[in-house]
């Protein structure tokens, strides 16, 4: 299938649709927003798998140079080679997705690795997003990627009019397949992960911004944390992630705490850039979204 758009553009287009649906007459269309959230999920899976492919490739290059060992993993398996990934974490230092800045910067994360303070922009995709073969290979991305997005959202049930605070699952970068979730910080590293124990890895800022206790919590949409050393998550989140759950269930906080457009004050406690008037620049919107992947699920929340 020919697709002129890459994953990032699709994400920004989808976010714009969700945003504009809030102001349209007749209220939010649940069906349409659900479908848009599927596109968002698909685009994000592709984006993530492309990114990990790139990171992994660079890791392998580095390993080859350093250890002169042949890469174990096929490129093809990249999407699933989560356990191998964290080993690279130490080399990479803080990993960030898409700074809120630089649309053009495509510096590979590897170069930023030695400097903990470096802000890594999303690396250039190893394969064009429109390459059907690639994304088909990488698709569907496994739940290993832990597409949970940790965020707290306040939702209003349209029927009961009860306001509840819902905590979503947890977004892990790439180590979720491992039973020892580095994100949880203190788990014993699994085989091959020894070097990564205690690695400083940055969460997607979208996660920690919900947790006021996180020392490096940043505002969503603010300048992406400029490479501050990763602080392991204080909360034990591992229990939130159920590796046994079916891919469908663990996949994506889909849409939908939708309610009427009148409750704009009620929702997220945090200032959320995606709630503010969306940047007209689609690129910027996408960057912000990717920098803080919680943004897009929150964007789907009505207000």
């Amino acid at each position, binding site marked *: *299938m020919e697709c*002129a758009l890459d994953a990032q553009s699709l994400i920004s287009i989808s976010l714009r649709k969700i945003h504009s649906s809030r102001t349209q007459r007749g209220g939010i269309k649940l*069906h349409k927003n659900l479908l848009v959230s*599927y596109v968002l999920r*698909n685009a994000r899976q592709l984006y993530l798998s492309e990114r990990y492919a790139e990171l992994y490739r660079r890791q392998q290059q580095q390993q080859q140079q350093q250890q002169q060992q042949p890469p174990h993993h096929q490129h093809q398996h990249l999407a699933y080679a989560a356990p191998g990934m964290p080993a690279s974490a130490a080399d990479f230092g803080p990993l960030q997705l898409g700074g809120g800045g630089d649309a053009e910067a495509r510096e590979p994360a590897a170069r930023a690795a030695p400097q903990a303070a470096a802000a890594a922009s999303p690396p250039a995709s190893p394969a064009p997003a429109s390459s059907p073969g690639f994304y088909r290979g990488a698709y569907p991305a496994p739940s290993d990627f832990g597409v949970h997005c940790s965020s707290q959202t306040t939702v209003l049930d349209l029927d009961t009019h009860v306001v509840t605070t819902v905590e979503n699952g947890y977004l892990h970068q790439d180590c979720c397949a491992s039973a020892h979730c580095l994100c949880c910080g203190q788990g014993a590293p699994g085989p091959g992960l020894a070097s990564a124990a205690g690695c400083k890895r940055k969460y997607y800022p979208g996660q920690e911004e919900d947790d006021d206790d996180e020392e490096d919590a940043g505002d969503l949409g603010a300048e992406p944390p400029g490479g501050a050393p990763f602080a392991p998550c204080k909360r034990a989140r591992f229990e939130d992630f159920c590796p046994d759950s079916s891919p469908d269930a663990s996949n994506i906080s889909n849409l939908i705490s939708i309610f*009427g457009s009148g409750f704009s004050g009620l929702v997220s406690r945090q200032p959320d850039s995606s709630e503010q008037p969306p940047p007209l620049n689609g690129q910027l919107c996408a960057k912000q979204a990717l920098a803080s992947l919680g943004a897009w699920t929150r964007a789907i929340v009505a207000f």
Partner: protein
Amino acid sequence: MPSHRMPSEADIISTVEFNHTGELLATGDKGGRVVIFQREPESKNAPHSQGEYDVYSTFQSHEPEFDYLKSLEIEEKINKIKWLPQQNAAHSLLSTNDKTIKLWKITERDKRPEGYNLKDEEGKLKDLSTVTSLQVPVLKPMDLMVEVSPRRVFANGHTYHINSISVNSDCETYMSADDLRINLWHLAITDRSFNIVDIKPANMEDLTEVITASEFHPHHCNLFVYSSSKGSLRLCDMRAAALCDKHSKLFEEPEDPSNRSFFSEIISSVSDVKFSHSGRYMLTRDYLTVKVWDLNMEARPVETYQVHDYLRSKLCSLYENDCIFDKFECAWNGSDSVIMTGAYNNFFRMFDRNTKRDVTLEASRESSKPRAVLKPRRVCVGGKRRRDDISVDSLDFTKKILHTAWHPAENIIAIAATNNLYIFQDKVNSEMH
């Protein structure tokens, strides 16, 4: 029947429905109006107007409303109209917008009483001193007047947007479906309804599919079907349980992995489901295909027809311009031998299930001079191009035929093209085959 007003959004036709005899045709529009057409009886005096449809009645069914609790405007757009089977001289129909269903009674008045004792012709009280004798009022003929009155208002039954209504074959109940729930109503009772399907998850974050359409079985008053955004159909039996969350049958076709794309979920969403007149089959429409399902086979449809497969490579742009969310309807002919659905560029498609032949026709003023024969159209996708072919890239995606209806007995079809209604008759083959 082209609209003579300046085209405005309110004139966009949003639903089309023949009544059970085909004598009446109702349309609803975005402005909340209902227009009913009546077929002129064929007469020797005016052979040219044999069986043509004229405006019978127009009324405002729904008005825009505001939900103050949720600060939501409720659109007046008529989503669906369903006729009730006629039980006396009056006609009745149900019309619904996103939130409220109304029962309308349409009556004719062609006589009026004259000769009242106490009132004069204008209805004013007479001066009693002038009344010297008593007379019995008589009914005198008058010009036909069609009166429409709202007999029931079924409100507050739905939290989400109503997408379909369907009258039961028992003629006493009907159901209404929104994104997450289906309610059963009694036609005479407006202050309560029974919830018979509820797919709302405990945590809305877990929502993965919504209800997109639903319909009662034409003969079995206990059976109904509803379609989902995931492309599946569920047949439910109201005798089995009060709450029909558990389906009796689940019809779904496994996805073809080679067709996987960003938009797979969108194009597999079912936009319409219709039982065949026989009750043996169901017809579904998703973005690119129409499918015929046999009630006796759940694993896959028995027939699949490509409506406009050339759009498969255009899904990205169709997503950008929102066309991928268009909800096309589908229709059976009276004998269930031909199925019809709309497409873009004011094209509509018909598929003959027996001969496996299909045709693309266009609803446009240029090609629709009265009594002109519609010329089949063709969309070319590269390769050899014939003279009158349209290329995929020159299709007008703003001209979409979402709503079509087929006369229950004859080869007469009603096509809604934005704000225009086209009625085509097959005079040569007026008998159903």
